């Protein structure tokens, strides 16, 4: 195709200065940032589609066994669920704030908010741990090990689709929890890098991408919470 070698404004061959973060195959920081961000969004929709399978399973079995799902859902602890929702929403806010600050070169605030996000994520996992153990104690396991006992749960034993509800519950929250843990590792690393001064308003792509990821984890929970705990 046509091909001029002429003064393409994008020329990077030589002289002018090259920010350290700019990789050789990009022509500008803007191109690199936009690419990274689009890449992240594309990655996020693969995550959405990954969870979609679980939602389909949930929808199908709920449609077939509405009463069982309501009964089983009622054994989940709404209080913990609500608290966890608020915790995650707050962590979303803190991550958004950390990006807000890094864009203004306020590294300290950025680190501070990243660390609060990390803390909130930890709280979320602890609450999940409490909830899981409460279920395990009464024989509420995913799959074949399902064997409900104890006053609150006994009535589930006779319900045909109760194991399905809890299988879906554990798989959904389990995969979500896995995402939280991965998010914690990444946020920890990013906070460390920010503390070391790696980011500035010139270059904060990793912070922004981590933020996007964390918000997605939050969004998934926004749907899981009512579907599993409330209705």
């Amino acid at each position: 195709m046509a091909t001029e070698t002429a003064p393409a404004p994008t020329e990077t061959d030589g002289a002018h200065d090259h920010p350290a973060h700019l990789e050789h195959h990009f022509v500008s920081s803007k191109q690199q940032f936009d690419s990274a961000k689009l890449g992240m969004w594309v990655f996020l929709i693969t995550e959405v589609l990954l969870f979609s399978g679980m939602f389909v399973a949930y929808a199908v079995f709920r449609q077939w066994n509405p009463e069982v799902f309501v009964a089983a859902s009622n054994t989940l602890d709404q209080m913990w669920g609500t608290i966890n929702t608020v915790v995650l929403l707050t962590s979303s806010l803190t991550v958004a704030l950390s990006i807000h600050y890094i864009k203004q070169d306020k590294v300290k605030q950025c680190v501070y908010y990243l660390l609060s996000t990390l803390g909130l994520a930890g709280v979320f996992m602890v609450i999940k741990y409490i909830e899981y153990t409460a279920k395990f104690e009464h024989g509420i396991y995913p799959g074949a090990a399902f064997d409900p006992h104890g006053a609150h749960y006994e009535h589930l034993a006779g319900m045909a689709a109760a194991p399905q509800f809890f299988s879906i519950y554990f798989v959904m929250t389990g995969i979500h929890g896995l995402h939280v843990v991965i998010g914690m590792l990444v946020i920890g690393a990013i906070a460390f890098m920010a503390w070391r001064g790696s980011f500035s308003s010139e270059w904060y792509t990793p912070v922004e991408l981590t933020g996007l990821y964390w918000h997605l984890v939050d969004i998934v929970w926004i749907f899981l919470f009512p579907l599993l705990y409330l209705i």
Partner: protein
Amino acid sequence: MSTTTQDAPVEDEAHHDEETNYLNHDTGIWSWLATKDHKRIGILYCISLAVVFLAAGILALFMRAELSAPGETIMGNETYNQVFTMHGILMVFLFLVPSIPAILGNFVLPMQIGAKDVAFPKLNLASWYVYMAGAILTIAALLTGGVDTGWTFYTPYSSTTGGGVLWMTAAIFVAGFASIFTGLNFIVTVHKMRAPGMTWNRLPLFIWGIYATSIVQVLATPVIGITMVLLILEQTMQIGIFDPALGGDPVLFQHFFWFYSHPAVYIMILPAFGILSELIATFSRSRIFGYRAIALSSVAIAMLGFLVWGHHMFVSGQSAISSIVFSLITYLIGIPSGIKVFNWVATLYKGSIWLQTPMLYALSFLFLFTIGGFTGIMVGVLAVDVQLHDTYYVVSHFHYVMMGGSVVALLGGMHYWWPKITGRMYNETLGKIAAGLVFVGFNLTFFPQLVLGSRGMPRRYANYAERFAGLHELSTYGSWVLGAGLFLILGYALWSLAYGEEAPANPWGATTLEWTNVAAIPDHHNFKRTPLVTRGPYDFHLADEVFGGGDGEALGDDVPRIPEPAPSAPTEDDTAASASA
């Protein structure tokens, strides 16, 4: 369009002298295993995929040998079941789904849009490693008892049978990520890395094909991932989503599986469409008829492809209303596919058609894919599919589209870009003979299967009734001819690597950037200067930098005017072609 191929004088760029190219600028095994160069990653993929194709193809030959006569000929039921399962899995998940994007997409895409590399080179390399991890898990599955579920893994058979199924599902989960990485990379690359002047309407159609494919890869692959996770949990913890004995629903599994695997068939065919557009345009030197229709129909097929998965389930027990909806949308896909076929044929009209090996594959494709497509329409007809489902008619349908369509297009593409990839020509005569053998062998193998199928021969049968024997035997002979053709290709490809003639920069007189602006063997960074694009990809009448004439005349005299003829091209060339860049 004025196009100057006038490069900066060679002396200026000492590090870019004639001898360095992407193959030799750095050597040693590690320079390959740690490469972030899209071209080298394409080659890594090419080697791995050729091995897989060879293995899966040899399994196919064994299968045909077993089926050459009724009763047990060379293997028992158990072996046969494992063989066809591995054949299907290897061919689909480990060969054809990655094939065109990972080999040719990787090699060609950045060059065609004028980029130095894909957007995320590290991710690109990671994709290959992830793919290899998937391959290793597949081997683990073989060592732990093999898999005999069919490539579709229908539950409850797959969730209760044990053996290597667990490993195999894990392998597919892992290999899926390789596919996602590639797709993600290409989407971003096409959006963000185009050279100045490379508008969406100037994208070569190969790019459009790959772009549409990438959308499908990104949207569909995660679903096979979660399906495999659920299947693994079903096997290990009996979570009861799919197994009816535990209160699950086996038909639900089929929804999950086909939500990925139907779009996956478009992952396999859309890049092939892209290759075909390149071949037809270049070898008939005419602008693609209905460029925009071909480009957009790829995207339309990609999207519609998500709405038809249930046509694999007409007799599975799904609701009739959904069967009807699925059937209707299935036909609609025939229409954008038809647009492509008709436009390609129209492109030949008043062209200048050069029957080189790649073009022979393109013409074979038109014939074979049309048969494959029409048989697809046939199995999409609700009442008729009741008769044809899970018979050899379906087997024949999908080989016509996958082998006759995608693989033939891949072969065409490999021949077309071979000079650019290796810097050497293949032997044109042998190429034509092999193309002929593949065409004849293919039809001899799979046409009888169409008849077998409509007469009621079920698929996945190690043994069959006497009355099917004649056609099966014919099909087996066909597979030998087909195999001979493919082994011939393997042979002369290796020969060409060592002894092939050196290729000129643009042996076909093509007009896309990888031919016009890149050295015979591409440089490590593809382009010496970022190209500025001023015309469409198939504007042969404007491509004076390739053919001479026009205002290209004014620009100097040391510019090649006419493409150097390929060594085996018609020889009455008038202009003395000068050495190319």
